[in-house]
């Protein structure tokens, strides 16, 4: 059956007026073959591999943008967790040099973010992991493109509280070294981190992956908001159906671009991540989808139900559209990168506590949350541990990207610049969990992990 004018218009309208785009094409690269006892040769191999692949990725992605008339907003690279490849070069200055090498390779190729400068330390910290964390304030302040992650827990290993306890001090140092604490936006801490997530700052090339793979992140909160707005009277079952149908269509676009791009690059196609991801552009907001559901501002009672419905419908629609759904696949609710979220915080509709509740049903966690710079380190660690325990117990990915902004107090607005948006500083509970957090150790794996 021929494609009708209505169908062409529907697609064109999504792209032209509702911000439908392929949010990211992320090339995962295995850096293990670059390891060399001669650090100079090691760095050169890393630079060459990243730079060459980055150039080709950008060239081929731009060709497809033109062919299909759909913007591919970000072209990115994720690498093997760097703590693994640095095991034989355990010196702080070498970690910094490796970060600078990756930063230069990405910058020279025209890649805006390169992820993977992190470690998998869900059960324990190697010397390499500890050194990496120790060097992060310098790395995040002396590079522009490098993103870092830590996976500090999983369903089967529990949560490494000793690793969590290193994060608060690290973030405070990073915040002091970067303008408005923005360096902290390039660091995310996970539990149950997916190995094929294409979205930054948490993308890395998992150790279970092949040599090279392409993952795609699609996005379209504007498209979903538009269909929800047109269906003001329908009940929740119908609403879920409408969202499923829409997400099916946008996921198919991602699948097409991903498959063709991987074929043109002559590499395997990894996963399509179907997460709804906001940007600061008008209308490109998950909070606005919730508003269209009939909730005045996100954070009001009813918001957790709304996010649960949205999240589930997105997954169902996406899962039908692609055999390769992976990554985080759900709904992001970053604060500073979503103008509807910013507005909700300003109106005191959304607090940190309600945001934590929302993350129990969304795909990630506390994302792009600014807090006062004088928040005690152990309170930052406790915020992180609270969020991550939701992931451990509920068998899901959970993450935290939090910015303790020096000199700022609750209610202040901080411009982070570019994609990172505007952060309203949120207040934190003034009482302390210091004596609890200093116990350290590991939260045992939950009983639900005993499945064998």
């Amino acid at each position, binding site marked *: 059956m021929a*494609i*009708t004018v209505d169908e*062409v218009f529907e*697609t064109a309208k999504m792209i032209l007026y509702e911000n439908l785009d392929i949010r990211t094409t992320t090339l995962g690269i295995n850096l293990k073959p670059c390891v060399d006892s001669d650090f100079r040769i090691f760095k050169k191999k890393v630079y060459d591999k990243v730079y060459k692949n980055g150039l080709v990725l950008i060239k081929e992605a731009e060709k497809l943008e033109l*062919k299909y008339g759909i913007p591919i907003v970000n072209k990115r690279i994720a690498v093997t967790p760097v703590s693994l490849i640095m095991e034989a070069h355990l010196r702080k200055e070498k970690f910094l040099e490796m970060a600078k090498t990756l930063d230069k390779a990405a910058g020279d190729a025209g890649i805006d973010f390169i992820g993977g400068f992190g470690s998998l330390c869900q059960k324990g910290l190697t010397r390499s992991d500890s050194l990496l964390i120790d060097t992060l304030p310098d790395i995040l302040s002396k590079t522009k493109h490098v993103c870092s992650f830590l996976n500090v827990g999983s369903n089967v290993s529990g949560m490494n509280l000793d690793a969590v306890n290193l994060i608060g001090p690290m973030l405070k140092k990073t915040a002091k070294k970067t303008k408005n604490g923005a360096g902290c936006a390039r660091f995310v801490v996970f539990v149950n981190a997916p190995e094929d997530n294409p979205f930054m700052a948490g993308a890395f090339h998992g150790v279970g992956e092949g040599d090279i793979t392409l993952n795609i992140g699609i996005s379209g909160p504007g498209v979903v908001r538009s269909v929800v707005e047109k269906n003001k009277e329908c009940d929740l079952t119908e609403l879920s159906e409408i969202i499923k149908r829409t997400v099916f269509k946008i996921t198919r676009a991602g699948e097409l671009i991903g498959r063709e791009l991987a074929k043109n690059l002559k590499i395997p196609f990894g996963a399509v991540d179907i997460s709804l991801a906001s940007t600061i552009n008008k209308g490109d907001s998950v909070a606005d989808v919730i508003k269209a559901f009939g909730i005045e501002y996100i954070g009001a009672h009813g918001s957790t139900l709304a996010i649960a419905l949205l999240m589930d419908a997105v997954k169902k629609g996406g899962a039908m559209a692609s055999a390769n759904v992976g990554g985080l696949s759900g709904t992001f609710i970053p604060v500073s990168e979503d103008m509807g979220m910013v507005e909700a915080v300003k109106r005191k509709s959304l607090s940190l506590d309600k945001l934590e509740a929302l993350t129990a049903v969304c795909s990630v966690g506390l994302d792009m949350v600014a807090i006062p710079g004088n928040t005690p380190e152990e309170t930052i660690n406790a915020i992180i541990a609270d969020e991550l325990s939701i992931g451990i117990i509920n068998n899901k990915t959970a993450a935290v990207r939090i910015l303790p902004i020096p000199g700022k107090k609750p209610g202040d607005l901080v411009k982070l610049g570019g994609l990172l948006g505007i952060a309203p500083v949120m207040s934190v509970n003034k009482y302390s969990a210091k004596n609890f957090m200093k116990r350290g150790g590991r939260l045992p794996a939950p009983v639900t992990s005993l499945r064998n």
Partner: protein
Amino acid sequence: MKKELSFITVIGKDKKGIVAKVSNLLYKNNINIEDINQKVMEGLFVMTMLVDVGGYKYPLHKLNSLLEKIGKEMGLKVQLQHENIFKMMHRV
């Protein structure tokens, strides 16, 4: 020659000469029009042309910029997209 079908979509306010301008450009560039449709939707004039760009000698971005130029002159949105994106999104 192998067919390469793409859709040209024109969206905006209906004006005299839209079809003439686009089809003249296509004719000059050896691009055949396979199908043409138009409709008013949500208060907008929408025209779609299914065209075979298999015979186009230059890189596609050149055709894109020529179409964009017409769009700018007439205050319309003009897009060129390979038919596969519509097939993927609207057909199972």
